[in-house]
């Protein structure tokens, strides 16, 4: 008997007034796998992420999490079953400090009845908060208000908040968008290492092919609502269709390899 995949998407479609934003998507993700989602603007990457996390209801198709149907689930219920996400624009509590953000997030996700009537500064939450800040390297910003953080640190906080409930699947929508070039790799090193430690299956949308090449186990390339390539990065990034529709010749990570592939 084959193991049940962490995530299985079958024939998933989404149309907006007749325009297919997602067309027959079929994806499986194993436990602990890290998958990069690439595609030009409007290719359907975020629609895909939004459908899995309940932000959008699919027109047809099925989404299964560990064999359980979660198609069209409410966002908060997605979190309850273990599917969490971060956003392209960091969604943190801007007027709170880094520590308050994490403590609030921790106390909300541990909302089992009476826990909501306790202080968010309960000793067990403070310990967990400390661990998270260390894991995501933001301890130094503990007392800084979120609105004054740099984009990079805010992204780290955003992702730390998305994982407070120890999700089984985490979807990150452009974790490095808006982050300076110098910060990018530092942030991804921290995030990927932390997520590997937590053993979560990660799907992240990314435009930077260097990051895709360096961190993912598998690439899903989107074009006009369809997945045109599902392969390991070494293979996907030299796929002629991916080069033509996603990467674009001049942005290819390895020009020679790309050209060879085209002329082959």
């Amino acid at each position: 008997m084959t193991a049940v995949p962490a995530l299985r998407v079958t024939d998933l479609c989404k149309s907006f007034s007749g325009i297919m934003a997602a067309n027959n998507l079929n994806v499986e993700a194993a436990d602990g796998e890290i998958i990069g989602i690439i595609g030009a603007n409007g290719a359907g990457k975020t629609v895909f992420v939004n459908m899995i996390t309940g932000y959008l209801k699919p027109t047809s198709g099925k989404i299964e999490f560990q064999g359980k149907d979660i198609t069209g689930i409410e966002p908060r219920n997605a979190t309850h079953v273990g599917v969490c996400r971060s956003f392209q624009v960091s969604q943190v509590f801007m007027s709170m400090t880094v520590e308050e953000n994490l403590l609030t997030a921790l106390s909300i996700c541990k909302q089992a009845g009476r826990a909501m009537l306790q202080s968010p500064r309960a000793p067990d939450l403070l310990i967990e908060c400390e661990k998270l800040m260390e894991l995501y390297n933001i301890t130094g910003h503990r007392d800084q208000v979120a609105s004054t953080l740099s984009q990079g640190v805010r992204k780290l906080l955003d992702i730390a908040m998305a994982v407070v409930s120890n999700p089984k699947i985490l979807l990150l929508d452009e974790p490095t968008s808006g982050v300076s070039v110098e910060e990018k790799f530092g942030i991804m090193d921290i995030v990927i290492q932390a997520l590997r430690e937590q053993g979560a299956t990660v799907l992240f949308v990314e435009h930077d092919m260097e990051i895709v090449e360096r961190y993912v186990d598998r690439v899903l390339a989107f074009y006009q609502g369809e997945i045109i390539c599902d392969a390991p990065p070494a293979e996907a990034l030299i796929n002629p269709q991916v080069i033509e529709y996603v990467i674009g010749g001049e942005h290819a990570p390895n020009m020679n390899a790309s050209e060879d592939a085209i002329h082959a």
Partner: protein
Amino acid sequence: MNQILKNDATIRWAVLGFFVLAVAGYFMEAWVQNNIMFGLARGLAVLGLMVLWRTGLISFGHALYFGIGAYVVGLVDRNFGISDIFLRLFLAVGASAFVGFFLGFILRKYRGIFFAMLNLAFSMVLYGILVKVESLGSTDGFSVSQTTILGWTPENKYALFAAIVFVCAVGAILVQCYLKTALGTLTTAIRDNELRVEYLGFSVARAIHLKYIMSAGLAGASGALLAMALGQVDPDSMVNWPVSGELVFITVMAGPGSVIAPFLGGVAFEFLRTYAFELAPEAWQLIVGATLLGIIFFLPMGLWSLLERIWKRRGVSS
């Protein structure tokens, strides 16, 4: 919860402040006592509005619950002869929270101006009914008999004053405890980012509904206390739209900084109105309006922020 009660500085100050006020009230002139009593009573409704404001919501119609509280006191007095302050309060809070529970299912879906105006609409429906129904006293309302306290009929108004101070202190402490719980921190969290709260697994609608019921109950208590302090209920001073306006006015004037602020704001408003009326009987609203403008321009976080500033400066210099 015990930990919050023990360690919170605001609660210590609230207990001390209200205790001093209760004692000082004994030596006050009747008109000062009355003003403080009215101000504190309104402060309870403002406390509820402050919780909503911290969540990013403003209601222009809480006179609905204020009125329900006041009229429940009047009706249980007239029809059943219930005169005990705590029993009256219990029934008033119950009735207003009950209405808040039902209307909350509609209101929790709305934000911003729609939330504010829908509340106003509901309050005007109640106003419309009250002015038309003869048996409820129509536009004149009806009087409320003297309040008793646990079976004792006090000889002067000081007992009611002290009881109102006590009720307000309990209200402030309970709300402060609530704000310090995980559920309470959801106020700022929802104002800052509803989407994140949903994705952390909590229903924003449910959290707002709970806060709405709470604010309705507090406004009910507020109306009930004012009805007892005035000895009278009538639609124009209990349910009409300027009553809601006054509550929002005090909320902005007091600022969202502390659970003590609404009571400070309520009392300040009563004195402002009294002196403005004495100074310019024909144009007292002008003075009241100008004061609010001044506060918005120079103290955008309300009177409470002024106290905080003074406090900090004293802290630094000592």
